[in-house]
């Protein structure tokens, strides 16, 4: 077979360049796509499948009438959150843009894929048929993201870590404060009750909160399960096993129906709170199992070394065991984070209008009855952008912490 080194000497000019590239392409295709009759067969089959997906799936889809998305974009993203108060949601978005850019700026090297995807989504949003004020916000977000990205490069690693840490820890409380508000109806920041929250806003509020809370709760449950106190151990084990033995739907129904009965009538928690409790309970149990697995991976000798240095049990956990557990658990944690994000779609079953709830409401409107495909595809795209950003950010984190030596497969 002809190899690259057998090629005639270097040619000059555009023609030479083209023939060199073409030669290389043929060589690459021969070795990688048609190396054996079996490879060739696989290549042909894959090409056929790809071609049919494009011709029967994507092309017809592009030809559909997508006005349903344009008309309902506000609903899909924020539900019935009052229009005049949308600036508060935008501020939260801008905050994420700024510190998202900031956090990744410090990572150095090329722009990470997740950031690129988010940027692409933003540009898409900017070009999409949305109101001028929204465009202004999106433009502002892109600018802040770049500002964050480049400003973080001016700081040293320590300052960067502190600022990013503080920013992300305060993010959830801040966004709750922004979204919920504080003043009476005539104040500058009127309260918007949670039953007005909807769409992507609701999805993110519930899933981010349950990620943030099920993480420490799961850790406590896992430690409780290993406790030497019988009662603590029994209670943790019981909670974990019961919750894991029941589907999320059931837990949501239980939370919906039982929590109001269990609590005094004066409290009367909103459906939002009930759903949140259900989702958090469910995910803490799974998180506890993740932590248990991680804790089991640490050899007994580490505890012994710490004990021989007279470190107390608590300090051993904090300084010796947990840092090792966390590092190993990043891949598992990320997959449960994306799982949480997607599972949240089930809350529509107890009447909350998250993205899925909203979309079924939209397609049940006779005007949009024929547009269910478009709505579904749009939902899928949003979920994909979110989950793929999370997981590709985590590959980066893993690579930086040296968790995995092999490259995680990616595009």
């Amino acid at each position, binding site marked *: 077979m002809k190899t690259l080194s057998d090629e005639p000497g270097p040619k000059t000019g555009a023609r030479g360049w083209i023939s060199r590239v073409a030669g290389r392409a043929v060589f690459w295709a021969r070795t990688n796509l048609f190396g054996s009759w079996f490879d060739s067969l696989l290549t042909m089959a894959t090409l056929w499948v790809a071609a049919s997906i494009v011709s029967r799936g994507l092309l017809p889809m592009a030809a559909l009438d997508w006005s349903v998305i344009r008309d309902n974009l506000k609903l899909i993203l924020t539900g019935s959150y009052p229009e005049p108060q949308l600036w508060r949601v935008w501020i939260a978005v801008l905050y994420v843009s700024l510190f998202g850019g900031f956090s990744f700026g410090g990572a150095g090297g090329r722009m990470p894929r997740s950031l690129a995807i988010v940027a692409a989504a933003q540009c898409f949003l900017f070009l999409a048929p949305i109101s001028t004020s929204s465009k202004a916000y999106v433009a502002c977000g892109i600018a802040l993201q770049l500002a964050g990205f480049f400003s973080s490069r001016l700081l040293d690693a320590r300052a960067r870590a502190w600022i990013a840490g503080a920013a992300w820890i305060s993010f959830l409380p801040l966004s709750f404060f922004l979204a919920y508000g504080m003043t009476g109806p005539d104040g500058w920041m009127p309260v918007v009750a949670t039953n007005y929250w909807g769409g992507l806003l609701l999805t993110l509020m519930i899933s981010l909160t349950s990620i943030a809370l099920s993480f420490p709760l799961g850790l406590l449950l896992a430690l409780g399960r290993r406790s030497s106190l019988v009662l603590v151990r029994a209670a943790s084990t019981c909670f974990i096993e019961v919750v894991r033995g029941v589907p999320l739907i059931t837990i949501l129904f239980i939370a919906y129906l039982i929590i109001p009965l269990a609590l005094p009538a004066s409290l009367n928690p909103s459906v939002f709170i009930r759903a949140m409790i259900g989702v958090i309970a469910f995910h803490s149990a799974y998180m506890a199992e993740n932590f248990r697995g991680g804790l089991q991976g640490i050899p007994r*000798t*580490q505890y*012994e*070394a*710490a*004990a*021989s*240095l*007279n*470190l*107390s049990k608590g*300090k051993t956990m904090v*300084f*010796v065991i947990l*840092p*090792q557990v966390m*590092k190993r658990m990043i891949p598992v944690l990320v997959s449960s984070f994306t799982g949480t994000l997607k599972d949240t779609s089930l809350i529509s079953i107890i009447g909350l209008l998250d993205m899925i709830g909203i979309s079924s409401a939209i397609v049940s409107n006779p005007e949009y009855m024929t547009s269910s495909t478009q709505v579904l595809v749009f939902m899928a795209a949003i979920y994909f952008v979110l989950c793929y950003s999370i997981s590709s950010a985590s590959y980066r984190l893993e690579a930086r912490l040296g968790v995995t030596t092999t490259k995680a497969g990616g595009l």
Partner: protein
Amino acid sequence: MKTLRAGEPIISCRDVHKWYTPEFEVLKGVSYDFYEGEVTVVIGPSGSGKSTFVRTINGLEEHQSGSVVVGGVELTHSVKNLNAVRSQCGMVFQSFNLFPHLSVMDNITLAPIWVKKESKSAARDRAMALLERVGMAGHASKYPGQLSGGEQQRVAIARSLAMDPSIMLFDEPTSALDPEMIKEVLDVMTELADSRMTLVVITHELGFAKAVADHIVFFDNGKIVETGSPDAFFGDPREERTKLFLSQILQH
């Protein structure tokens, strides 16, 4: 630590019994006294209970009857006593057991900072001095995974020394090492012995035992079978069991 009266042993074990399971008695009544500034080498066949015995001394294993008194403090279930005993005993393990997520410096300073409440800078200064002492001064910012076995073991020794123990316990510190690294670790231990630190060493390195030890303790089947100075023990063993063991290991 209480001050010892003249002639009082620094570690005193009286009729120590330990069971791992109700049927399996590992230590069958061990009594022995260790004196300050002396080097004791514990030898014996595999599974005879040497590790269990030494781990009992700093409370990593609990004994069920008998008494262990370290520096005047009796090992009981009380956490206070356990801490008092452990603060006097450093322990070096066969598999080093460094904390893999911490640099060499952080491995050494973790306990001084968080247990002894030393200031960060004081702890770092002392860590550097200790690294110097074990010949690892150039490796402070490395991680355990980047070091050879012998280097890791020397860092582990420095980590134990950083807690200012008066006794160092070694459980086969060179068994996991390649031959060319054994000497660098034994040299550090010899230097500790020369500085009159109390050492209790489980080892199969007979050269070290003969040259450095003040006493040899021979363990078999959960009991101390024979004790003596290295000369007497290796030159003129009394017990048949000892003779058999020595003939087996000297064959190699």
